[in-house]
């Protein structure tokens, strides 16, 4: 297949990857890209809620802080939470899925009934309930809660793969040749679950970012001065009529990041699952 056809066929992956690359790059290089400190409060007054200008391309917030700097720095937090939580979720989900699917039996039933119950809750509602258990909200609790609730999807994906592979001839052959369970899991079961796992994990990053933003927006996540797009949007709502830019830019950043992840995830699904080809 010539290069241009590959590009056209997988435009979702390319577009999503580009979008994410640019956003992640901007977040990582935030200190180089903007000279304003995201926490620096304007002195002397008259600089608060300033419209977008050449000096402050995204305007300033109620304390006169540069919004471009804040959006980029908050991007570091939001992206790190999205990816970091998903890594933990994938590890936990793989472990639970493998144990349940490979060993089966009562352990499998217990683990799968647990996923049934966790999945029986609308995710954000249960997250809010879990956050309420703690005396004080904060980003660390958000990470804890998102990991505690996020593993079910991946656990089911991996369990399904482990279950179907357990009885395959080549796995039986490997066992007959004296391979132990760990070797079989690492060499045969995990690689075969990798495709669906990758898709679920990619889309999971987007869900984590939206959940973090939602919780922070509700005041149950990042607390000032920790930067987060969700917390910035809560500020934005206060000044929606007088200074709409405070709400517009962090939201656009969040939207673009999630869009990039969804394009990438959908693209990967098309790539890895031939059934989705038209």
């Amino acid at each position, binding site marked *: 297949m010539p290069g241009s056809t590959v590009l056209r066929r997988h435009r979702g992956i390319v577009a999503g990857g580009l979008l994410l690359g640019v956003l992640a790059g901007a977040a990582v290089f935030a200190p180089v890209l903007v000279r304003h400190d995201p926490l620096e409060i304007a002195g002397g007054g008259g600089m608060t809620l300033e419209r977008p200008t050449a000096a402050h391309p995204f305007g300033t917030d109620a304390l006169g802080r540069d919004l471009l700097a804040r959006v980029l720095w908050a991007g570091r937090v939001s992206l790190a939470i999205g990816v970091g939580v998903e890594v933990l979720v994938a590890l936990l989900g793989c472990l639970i899925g493998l144990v349940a699917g490979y060993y089966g039996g009562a352990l499998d039933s217990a683990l799968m009934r647990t996923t049934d119950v966790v999945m029986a*809750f609308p995710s954000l509602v249960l997250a809010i309930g879990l956050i309420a258990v703690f005396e004080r909200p904060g980003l660390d609790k958000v990470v804890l809660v998102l990991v505690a609730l996020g593993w079910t999807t991946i656990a089911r994906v991996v369990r399904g793969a482990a279950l179907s592979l357990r009885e395959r001839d080549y796995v039986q052959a490997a066992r007959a040749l004296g391979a132990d369970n760990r070797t079989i899991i690492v060499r045969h079961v995990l690689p075969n679950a990798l495709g669906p796992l990758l898709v679920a994990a990619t889309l999971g990053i987007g869900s984590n970012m939206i959940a973090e933003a939602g919780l922070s927006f509700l005041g149950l996540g990042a607390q000032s001065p920790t930067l987060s797009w969700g917390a910035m949007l809560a500020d934005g709502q206060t000044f929606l009529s007088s200074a709409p830019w405070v709400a517009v830019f962090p939201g656009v950043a969040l939207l673009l990041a999630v869009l990039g992840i969804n394009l990438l995830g959908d693209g990967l699904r098309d790539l890895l699952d031939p059934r989705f080809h038209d």
Partner: protein
Amino acid sequence: MSPTALRVVGGRVAAVVPVAFGVTLLVFLLNAAALGDPARAAMGQRGDPEVIERIRRDYALDRPLVAQYGAWMTRLARGDLGHSYHQQRAVTEIILERAPATLRLALTATLISVLLGVMMGALAGRRPGSLVDHVIMATAVLGISTPVFWLGMMLSLVFAVTLGWLPVSGYGGGDWQHLVLPAVTLGALHTGSVARMTRGSLLEVTRQDYMTTARAKGLAEPVLLVKHALRNAAIPVVTVVGIGLADLLVGAPLTETVFAWPGVGRLLVAAVGQRDLPVVMGAVLVFALVYVVANLLVDLAYLLIDPRTRAR
């Protein structure tokens, strides 16, 4: 209903019972973890001895956890969710007072997402690969990726703040003007998924032999689309509507907060802020049980639409 159908329906209902029990157990454990010891629970209550005594009695805190769960379930069976710390009233009463607003919002949002989504999906699926198809599918992905609370703020900025066509927020005594923006916001999240699913299953259906037969009979395209294609494409769409319930319930606390909508979602968020634990846990439990029951109804809807599932 035939005995077979009755047995299938009974089976589905029975399968939900352990999940519902699991839900109550999880909420109970959350509550126990949040309460900790009675002294800590009462700290937020300025140490009022009467309140401490009631918490102790309500939650049977001096007894083992199993007994506490038993006592809690007994009260739950009577519809008793405890007393609010903040408002000196029964939690059940508070939630029932807020439920109609959330129900109204959720039903309108579902209606919007299904009507709009099926329309978009049918339009896109009629001519796959066309410009219309691409535009609609791009809009769908954009809709799925938009954070619901930000969308609400932007709609409010355009239609309420700037144009002044609709009120910014509030319930407004239940008139339709106040309902429009929150319902569109909550519905938009899910419209994209419905559109994608409708398009996908429409493409699948139009490839089937019975469609060729119907076309060969000389049926007009609109009749073909509505009578043969959409009915058969409805099965996956019902699935999406079912999944959409989750979106709807997840979106409710956010949308209600943005629009100051006096529903259960906003009640939940406010209660967390006030550390009003009985209200928090009551609202979480009600949301989860509504979700479980709604999923059961979706499951039963398959039996109605698709006779093939009845055999299973």
